[in-house]
């Protein structure tokens, strides 16, 4: 397929394929065979059984059985790729970091940017045959990617920190200090007056 045709095809199909679908495509076999893959890297606290469960829609499909060998080839090409590993580590760190609720939008945007970077990395390395496999399994893969995206959204939302309102100092204390100061000045003045009276009286006597 010529380069122009491929670009055109990509632009038509990208609307139907979410960026996360590419991640699901390359990690399909690892997740189903209960091997540690990239999605397990994003959810380090989840067991391999839970991650496999997310892929039920794929491995229950007839298309999966037909495409298993091709999926194995795709998976082996991308597994343990140093550049991808770094990208997924960044995604995990960003996803697990707490953030102030006021910065929710920018935080979500950062996560989305990394996911898009990963999907571009994968997309550029897929063959025409791989694209066909993706098209055949698109509805199943999209279903899985939606589930995973929702899980990420929920986790990210739970890590938002609500900013506390600044505590105002009670007005009474301020008044009390003012009263205290006044009293002290009063006492001092009283002492001074007494002293002046005494000295004047002594002088007169």
């Amino acid at each position, binding site marked *: 397929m010529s380069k122009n045709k491929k670009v055109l095809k990509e632009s038509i199909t990208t609307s139907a394929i979410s960026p996360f679908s590419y991640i699901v495509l390359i990690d399909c076999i690892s997740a189903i065979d209960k091997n540690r893959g990239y999605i397990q890297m994003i959810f380090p606290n989840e067991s391999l059984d839970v991650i496999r469960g997310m892929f039920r829609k794929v491995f229950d499909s007839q298309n999966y059985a037909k495409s298993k*060998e091709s999926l*194995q*080839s795709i*998976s*082996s*090409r*991308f597994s*343990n*790729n*140093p550049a991808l590993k770094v990208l997924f580590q960044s995604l995990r760190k960003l996803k697990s970091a707490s953030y102030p609720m006021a910065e929710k939008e920018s935080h979500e945007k950062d996560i989305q940017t990394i996911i898009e970077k990963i999907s571009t990395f994968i997309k*550029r*390395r*897929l*063959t*025409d*045959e791989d694209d066909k496999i993706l098209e055949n399994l698109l509805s199943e893969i999209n279903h899985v990617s939606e589930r995973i995206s929702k899980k990420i959204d929920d986790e990210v939302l739970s890590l938002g920190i609500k900013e506390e309102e600044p505590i105002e100092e009670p007005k009474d204390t301020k008044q009390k200090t003012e009263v205290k100061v006044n009293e002290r000045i009063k006492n001092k003045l009283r002492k001074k007056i007494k002293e002046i009276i005494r000295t004047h009286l002594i002088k007169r006597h």
Partner: protein
Amino acid sequence: MKNKNYQSIIEEVTLRVFKKLTEINLVDEGTGFDTIFTELKKQLNDISIMPDNVIDVSKYKEHEIIEALKRIGYIYRKPMGGKLHFFNKKTSISVYLVQKNLTITLLP
């Protein structure tokens, strides 16, 4: 006298550079091919050499060949017109897996 000194220095430097170069794993197409074949043979027993420095790996499935290539240090780079390009960072050698007939070549 001066010329003789220069000549001996040049000879010494040339010898040193030559020794250094022989230490580095320089690979031309021929020796690189032999090395790759030997290394791959350790991973996949049932492979053979075809004419024009081509390795026949068709007895194995594509994912098995990829895993074997990865074990000997080749990382997948990109597709190139029916071939998959793998690159070894340590030796700076590229190999190409032809998907159609499952053979490995050193030429793109």
